[in-house]
């Protein structure tokens, strides 16, 4: 049962990583700030600028 729970936890963590939600949490921690609309926009600007400069795989 705990193995299943671990798999589900890891799967959710992978989805959150792909969704940039983990990255946003790290951003909030690094900036020592709280979630807000403006902070999310600042994060998106930084994140997307780096992310969409790289080729996507075929």
């Amino acid at each position, binding site marked *: 049962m705990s193995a299943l729970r671990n798999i589900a936890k890891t799967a959710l963590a992978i989805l959150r990583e792909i969704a940039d939600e983990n990255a946003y949490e790290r951003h909030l921690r690094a900036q020592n700030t709280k979630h807000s609309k403006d902070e999310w926009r600042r994060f*998106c600007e930084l994140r997307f600028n780096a992310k969409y400069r790289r080729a996507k795989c075929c």
Partner: protein
Amino acid sequence: MKKLLGHLTWAAIAVLGAYFLGGIALNRGESINSMWLVVASVCLYLVGFRFYAKFIAAKVMALNDERATPAERLRDGHDFEPTNKWIVFGHHFAAIAGPGPLVGPTLAAQFGYLPGTLWIIIGAVLGGCVQDFIILFCSMRRNGKSLGQMAREEIGKVGGFTALLTVLLIMIILLAVVALVVVNALKDSPWGTFTIAATMPIAVFMGLYLRYLRPGKVLEVSVIGFILVVASIFGGQWVSESSTWSPWFTYGGIALAWAVIFYGFLASALPVWLLLAPRDYLSTFVKLGVVLMLGVGILFVRPEMKMPAFTQFVDGTGPIFAGKVFPFCFITIACGAISGFHSLISSGTTPKMIAKEWHAWPVGYGSMALESFVAVMAMISACVLDPGIYFAINSPAGVVGATADKAVAMISSWGYPVTVGAMRELAANVGEETLFYRTGGAPSLALGMAHIFASSVGGKVILGFWYHFAIMFEALFILTIIDAGTRVGRFMLQDLLGHVYKPLGRTGWMPGVIVASAAIVLGWGYFLIQGVKDPLGGINSLWPLFGIANQLLAAIAMCVATTILVKMHRAKYMWITCIPLTWLVVVCYSAAIEKIFSDVPRIGFLSQANVLQAALDAGRIPEAQLAATQAQIFNNRLDAVVCAIFLVLVTTILADSVRLWYRILTGGQPARVVEAEFVLSRLRPEEV
């Protein structure tokens, strides 16, 4: 005792893999169950991972968990962050999985299931996985540097510039060919066109939701987006059955091509958060979900393979694309066996997330093995169709005849019986007007997947839903590649243009953005229109061009990897990268030379141009087709030039690398490794 049990288990896996591989390789004349392919491939990936990759990790790379990775040393809370290895694995797999491993095997199935399957498995175990793993390692030891930067620093300035130019050219061909796959899938299909058109307002809604309503809730909005996309599939069915709405979403190839070109321009110039990013999230989740569903579906249904092991088209007379099994099977399947594009991902985000050096083993090698398994599943999906139906869908009118009667007569004469009635019934079952001449691989793959899904859930009644679900899934992430690729191409071009006129290099300067976006879009748009107008179906010329380009990029990655091994004083292990490199060079040069110079007009670009020119000069072309023929002649010559440019670029980097290896190995130049310095890792196990 535990050790002995471990040895016995691995021996059993190896024997099982060999038995099943032997089974599929030696079977002739009887249909086999798809589970033979599944078991053979899984066992070989496991053996390759456990023994070959571990050998490379321990002896060649000497991975060391005591050494701090860039994620730890340069931790910044943004790009550099030590991350759990399974999360990096999932993230990396999601980044490397594209349409290539699905479309390539579907097209290569024209040779039968065996050549493609063997290449997918062996190519991945000895080539593709090794490339991804070694480039990831090299980038990780160099603070996450890109392939281009490593080529410049390790080989020289010529190598760096060549790599950059090659990537830009490959992007243009890649975008054209994947756009062609979408256009051919949506041609005269109101159901498919409506569904895909609906994904755009859905993506914009998701962008606005994330920006203004619930910032940061990406998973939440992705679930909403997915529900809306599934609803749009049902909406598409209603549209296709409505005599009022159906004509609004029924378009020919040229109109759809212009729509995709316009979309690419818009997505490149619009703010990322509005269209590109939300669509990217949605397509990644749908992609992962569908791959998982396909795996479960194949295990549940265990379908029979109806395609023979070999078809007569190994001799080069195939209707889908012309060319013998060697070298064309090996360039048609790139992603899934070995793909140069993966080296860009392995030297992108992933090396900045690896917490411990040994994590590169499952992430680099393991993710590619999983991608290769996706390619095996695509091969199964294509081969569970009746071969007659497979060829009727994928063959262009220029090869099998312009009417349904002529097409079925021609395909049946090859020994793959099919009737107009059966094709009509199938088209009606999936809600399409016709399934003839749907070249590009996507429709036949969608049909194979729909067959597997419908056998698991819903039966024949919802075959149409599953077919359009599969088309939606393919088109969704192909369009994501088009918008992201156009944007990346724009940045690369702006980098180059900035040297000519500085403001053009500023990514925020609107005139520069518009000029560069338009140039990139027109670049791939030109090849797309050429493919749509091609009477041989477009795929015949564009897919091999893309395959050659992608494999040549893999050759560049292998040159970089070999150079680094030589500099690390690991020359005795050069064979690990040199064997796949030699194979890639032989395959790509053979294919490129054939594509340029072959006497067979369906294969050789120049010979096709000459045949058309001769017909033109002799006055055998009707006046109404004069302009189209002249354009075809020009396009064939252009394709030959592009192919030659690829060869020149790769020959340059190859010659530069071999010269460097020779000088280092003969003591003419010191072997200076450009690695980051050793820093002791202080990361505690609970932190990863």
